[in-house]
């Protein structure tokens, strides 16, 4: 019997996973403004037989309290445009764009993804998000986000309507090669998981360790089965970042070197954005200003209190807290070791049912992607865990799903 295959997605938004990644000697911060860069990384992903390239998205300005960060790399170029351009220079790799259901109409979404689906020859995917950042609302003439249950209710309606519109586009022609784009979701809350279970064909999630991956996948698969869908029709793709080295020590040293590129000022900018409150005027050696944070944050206060109060009680200075916070961006698994060890880890997760594959988040770009494609991909291929060529042309074929599938909205 064929060994369990590992699916790979490349999450390529920005200049890398670590906030300090843009300063790495093999990062190209100027590249993200040029077609040459996108052509190069798209071809690299295809060379590595990745299922798809994924871009996240934000609809708010970066920073906190109206202050624009100076030390954080922050291009958030429109993902649909970047992926459409990448479609023109590749033949097989899927193209998954994150687009909000709260700030687009079904008509806008159907037109954009319908066009992506046609011009890419059936390689389009839509990462459906409801947009949770409060700073988004003023860019769309509103003071506040709609409440969460309202956002999910709207998301269901918008997806169902978009599917009707794609069916109509497909009938009118030119046909949509997959019928409609592949639907992807990344919700973590119970609302988000239920929505994903009904809708998604692939799910992106954080899983800091193998147990978290197993729990998440089991939970999602049972929710998928509960709504009458086949759990094998859903790919679960936790995030994975890495720093590789010739030995474990080398990898750890390289990881430390990336983190050391960040000074307190960058760490505090990153923390400020994550807490939704500008802390850049505070002394890095002083106490964490918890009262100010809870007073000024635009994010849910209870969540923020849970994140900062224990450190304040321990007397951790602001700069040290920010630096530590930045070491573990967004709760994802960060692998440090040799390419062989990384391949072992990936196979272990796959065989344990912790995932169907991984969403690689290179620590800096394009160097981090180059290293993975050159050093880890060949090992996975040699061990029979990663394809050496694409099975077809559409993203659904690449994912091993039925070529044209109807939605269960």
């Amino acid at each position, binding site marked *: 019997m064929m060994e369990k295959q590992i699916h790979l997605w490349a999450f390529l938004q920005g200049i890398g996973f670590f906030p300090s990644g843009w300063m790495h000697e093999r990062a190209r911060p100027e590249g993200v403004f040029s077609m040459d860069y996108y052509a190069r990384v798209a071809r690299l992903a295809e060379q590595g037989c990745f299922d798809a390239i994924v871009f996240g998205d934000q609809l708010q300005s970066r920073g906190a309290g109206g202050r624009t960060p100076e030390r954080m790399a922050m291009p958030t170029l429109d993902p649909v445009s970047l992926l459409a351009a990448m479609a023109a220079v590749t033949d097989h790799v899927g193209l998954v764009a994150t687009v909000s259901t709260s700030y687009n109409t079904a008509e806008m979404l159907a037109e954009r993804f319908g066009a992506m689906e046609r011009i890419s020859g059936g390689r389009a995917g839509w990462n459906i998000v409801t947009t949770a950042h409060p700073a988004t609302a003023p*860019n769309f003439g509103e003071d506040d986000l709609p409440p969460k249950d309202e956002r999910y209710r709207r998301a269901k309606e918008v997806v169902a309507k978009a599917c009707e519109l794609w069916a109509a586009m497909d009938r009118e022609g030119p046909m949509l090669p997959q019928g409609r784009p592949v639907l992807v979701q990344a919700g973590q809350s119970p609302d988000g998981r239920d929505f994903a279970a009904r809708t998604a064909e692939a799910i992106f999630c954080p899983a800091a360790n193998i147990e978290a991956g197993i729990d998440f996948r089991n939970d999602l698969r049972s929710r998928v089965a509960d709504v009458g869908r086949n759990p094998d029709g859903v790919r679960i793709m936790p995030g994975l970042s890495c720093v590789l080295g010739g030995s474990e020590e080398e990898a750890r040293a390289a990881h430390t070197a990336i983190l050391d590129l960040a000074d307190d000022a960058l760490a505090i900018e990153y923390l400020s954005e994550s807490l939704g409150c500008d802390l850049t005027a505070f002394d890095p050696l002083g106490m964490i200003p918890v009262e100010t944070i809870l007073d000024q944050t635009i994010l849910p206060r209870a969540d923020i209190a849970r994140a900062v109060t224990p450190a304040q009680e321990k007397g951790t200075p602001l700069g040290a807290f920010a630096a530590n916070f930045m070491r573990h961006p967004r709760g994802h698994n960060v692998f440090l070791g040799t390419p062989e060890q990384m391949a072992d880890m990936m196979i272990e997760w796959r065989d344990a049912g912790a995932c169907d594959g991984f969403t690689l988040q290179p620590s800096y770009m394009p160097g981090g992607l180059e290293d993975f494609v050159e050093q880890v991909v060949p090992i996975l291929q040699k061990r029979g865990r990663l394809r050496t060529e694409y099975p077809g042309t559409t993203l659904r074929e690449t994912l091993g799903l039925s070529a044209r599938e109807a939605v269960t909205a």
Partner: protein
Amino acid sequence: MTRPFILSASIAEATFAVPETAAPILQAAEAAGLDLLVMGRSGERPFDAQVLLAWAAPMTTRLGLVATVPASNAHPFHVARALSAIDFLTAGRTGWSVIPEGAEDGMAEDMVGAARALWDGWGSDTLILDKASGRYLDAAKVHASNYEGPFFKVAGPVNAMRPPLGHPLLVVDGDDPIAISDADLALIDEDGAAPTATKRLLKVSPDADVASLITRFEAGEIDGVHLTLTNAAAQLPEIGARFTSLVEGRAHEAGDLRRRLGLPIPQTASNQPGGAVIPENA
């Protein structure tokens, strides 16, 4: 610089939405010496022009790419972001034409105002990208847009970047005009009222008399011509052959469209004007 004769055409064939058709048409448009290819037009929305523009970016080297944007089915924040990205992908070859059809009166103009305010939130020299000092940008050059019009209220600035052109070229179609006094290009009819714009392109049929067009161009009456393609694959080679004397010598010109076509560089009140400059050797 001598004043360039501007050769423009629009395409709205539904079959342009698939790569097998679009790729040879883009090649033919470049070979014909076209300065601008307008994707979509008033009354015809066979595809999402912004997506096709982005796809066309790496397929072309000098062609100006103009997206029609329906004011009735778009939001300025999304449009400003997409055009910013596409202008980087094309290194300054992007334009847009807002179609008022189906939208309430004033909405198209409001969209233009909002998008410009979103782009103007960034100075042209905002980015630093200095790895040694850790300074990515100069925050003093980033400003909220706080645009408030009759239809759109947008805090901004655009969360992408000022485009290389400053503002992508704004094209106004005389058949479906919008009330903007400082458009870059107007597509005008022989008899119709001409919208105000820096450059005026006369709508002609592919068999128009070239000699008389040259006379009118030299008299300053028009700045070029615009053709409505109905069968692009067949028409583009003919257009290239007939108009070749007008665009000769410019066929391989690169560089941003504002400089090539002699169009003004957008000014802003608070920021360094012009298009975004990306520092090299970061």
